């Protein structure tokens, strides 16, 4: 019964004019940055974070969630029309979506990805609602060892799935942890690693790091070469897929939704990975796998549904455990904490309106996105045609203002520029930014949980292996690390980007 009263309360929150407006702004901006290459949801959410300080936390979260799932919709548009994915989660859509466009079925491809996203997004939200309460109840019994073990597991999965060397990804996670230790120690009140700089007393800011690593560095990468973007010149007509196309897309959408939701719960880029797995699965199940890559609608419907369902899944660990499953959720967690809220099992009990308001707003957001993406497709195509020479100074300008206005200090701008350079070099050298940022957000919580656990156990690490939940999480994490380092198992490690494309 809790759920039904929750839903009612949620709609009461999300249907207010203010929150509808924030939801709209969120999905609109989300679609926009999904269409634009070179800035993703992480950068955008960090960017808009300062603007939400004076706003009710519910409204802020509603808007930021809207950016996240809106970007998933927008990303597919560029994949289909230009063969350039706006978001990593839409990379796979290029394969068949662009081919469909070349065959004159751009409308159907855009349509099925919007409808598939809508269906999957909505089901994902329903599943989130029903899963959150039981899980949060369970999480109330968690102590520091469980939290520490779960966060370790999360970081391990993220580094395990990282592109390239797991050692490098683990190193990045450690760098993120070290960065998070800068500033006043939460337990003793002593300053640590501040190099006697006043600005570092409060620690390094999440926003400048996130915008540097995921905003500025992307811009720098795009500046390397003169990008030519040829929008596929075709009359986009008939956005409604025909009956045959619906019949072929039906099951891929269902399967994509299930894969997306459950992979979304797991840490490590759920939306991206689930879209790849969904594509692989559809290809495997198809009676004509050789035709994939030539404009099969199944190859658009499945992955596009998967990446949207993953959004719902990704909220599960954030709201129930307070542990973000991916970088976007990590930034959202940071946003909640800036608003003085600690996500986790207590949030559902103490501030149910935040959870239910956000969840129900996602229904509204999905409806708005359908309206935004189908009739307004022409607008997004125009946005695609903005030359990069105009676009990149604007992206940088927004980053500059975003970094400055958080604390009204130019120091944060310098931090952002430094991390822009660092992020750029990291991409060149195949180091991933996601483990660094996620570890940076988790760092203070992990340290506290570890210190408390050691106090509880009088210094024995056995505490992590004697309690069932933490033992299971630690065991899994250790198994993942071993499976990477034991050479005979190494060949089996999934290399998603290479195997499935």
């Amino acid at each position, binding site marked *: 019964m809790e759920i039904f009263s929750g839903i009612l309360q949620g709609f009461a929150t999300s249907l207010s004019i203010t929150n509808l407006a924030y939801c709209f702004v969120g999905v609109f901006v989300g679609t926009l940055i999904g269409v634009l290459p070179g800035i993703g949801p992480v950068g955008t959410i960090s960017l808009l974070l*300062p*603007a939400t300080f004076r706003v009710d936390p519910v409204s802020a979260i509603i808007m930021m969630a809207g950016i996240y799932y809106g970007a998933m919709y927008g990303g597919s548009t560029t994949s289909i029309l230009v063969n350039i994915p706006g978001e990593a989660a839409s990379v796979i859509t290029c394969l068949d979506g662009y081919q469909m466009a070349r065959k004159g079925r751009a409308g159907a491809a855009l349509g099925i990805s919007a409808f598939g996203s809508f269906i999957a997004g909505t089901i994902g939200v329903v599943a989130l609602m029903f899963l959150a309460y039981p899980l949060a109840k369970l999480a109330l019994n968690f102590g520091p060892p469980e939290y520490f073990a779960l966060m370790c597991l999360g970081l391990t999965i993220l580094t395990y799935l990282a592109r*390239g*060397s797991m*050692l*490098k990804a*683990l*190193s990045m996670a*450690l*760098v993120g*942890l*070290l960065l998070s*230790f800068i500033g006043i*120690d939460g337990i*003793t009140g*002593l300053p*640590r*690693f501040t190099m006697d700089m006043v600005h570092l007393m409060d620690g390094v800011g999440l926003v400048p790091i996130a915008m540097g690593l995921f905003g*500025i560095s992307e*811009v*720098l990468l795009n*500046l*390397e*070469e*003169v990008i030519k973007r040829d929008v596929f010149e075709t009359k986009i007509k008939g956005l409604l897929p025909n009956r045959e196309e619906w019949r072929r897309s039906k099951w891929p959408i269902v399967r994509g939704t299930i894969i997306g939701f459950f992979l979304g719960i797991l840490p490590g880029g759920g939306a991206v990975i689930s879209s790849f797995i969904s594509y692989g699965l559809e290809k495997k199940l198809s009676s004509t796998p050789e035709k994939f890559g030539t404009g099969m609608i199944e190859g658009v419907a499945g992955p596009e549904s998967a990446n949207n369902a993953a959004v719902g899944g990704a909220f599960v660990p954030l709201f129930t455990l307070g542990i973000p499953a991916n970088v976007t959720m990590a930034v959202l967690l940071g946003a909640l904490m800036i608003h003085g809220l600690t996500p986790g099992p207590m949030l559902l009990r103490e501030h149910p309106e935040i959870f239910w308001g956000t969840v129900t707003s996602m229904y509204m957001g999905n409806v708005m996105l359908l309206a935004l993406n189908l009739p307004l497709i022409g607008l997004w195509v125009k946005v695609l045609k903005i*030359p*990069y*020479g*105009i676009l*990149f*100074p*604007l992206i*940088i*300008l927004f980053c*500059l*203002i975003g970094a*400055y*206005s958080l604390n*009204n200090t*130019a120091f944060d*701008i*310098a931090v952002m*520029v430094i991390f*822009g350079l660092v992020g*750029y*070099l990291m991409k*060149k*050298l*195949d*180091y991933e930014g996601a483990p660094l940022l996620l570890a940076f957000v988790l760092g203070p919580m992990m*340290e506290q949980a*570890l*210190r408390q656990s*050691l*106090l509880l*156990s*009088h*210094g024995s690490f056995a505490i992590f292996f004697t309690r069932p939940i933490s033992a299971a999480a630690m065991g899994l994490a250790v198994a993942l690390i071993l499976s990477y380092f034991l050479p005979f198992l190494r060949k089996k490690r999934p290399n998603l*980007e*290479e195997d499935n494309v």
Partner: protein
Amino acid sequence: MKIGELLSSLLLILVGTLFCHSSLHIGMGSINAPGPGLIPFGTGALLILFSVGTIVEVLITKRAAAQGSSPFFKGRRWGVIFAVLISLFVYALVLNFLGFLLATFLVLLLLFKIPGERTWKGAVGIAALTTACTYALFGYALQCSLPPGILEFLGL
């Protein structure tokens, strides 16, 4: 590529060492009563360990030349990237002195001009317009406090 990977690993070893070194000064406590330096020390030590591991991994794996990653010196436009970074850094330094309007106008002028597709006249126009619009949006509509700097007398 190997050179870059080795150098970056060495850099990470240095970072780890620095953190370990200052952790010792902060106070390690003991394992059953961890002090503020203990966990950073452990983290730094692990970073050193993994970076050494990366070096070993780089040295022992024979890789095909093209392994997906883009070669370091592929970009022919290093100058552009360098110029953008320097402009942004200088922006951070002069923002409080010059104020938002002037500093932003100048940095935008450079950013619009640097890729080399626009004339100075065009760049000045678009930079001025963009500065005015963002000032209206952030300074007035969103009420962000932006530094006035030397243009304070204008009372904007």
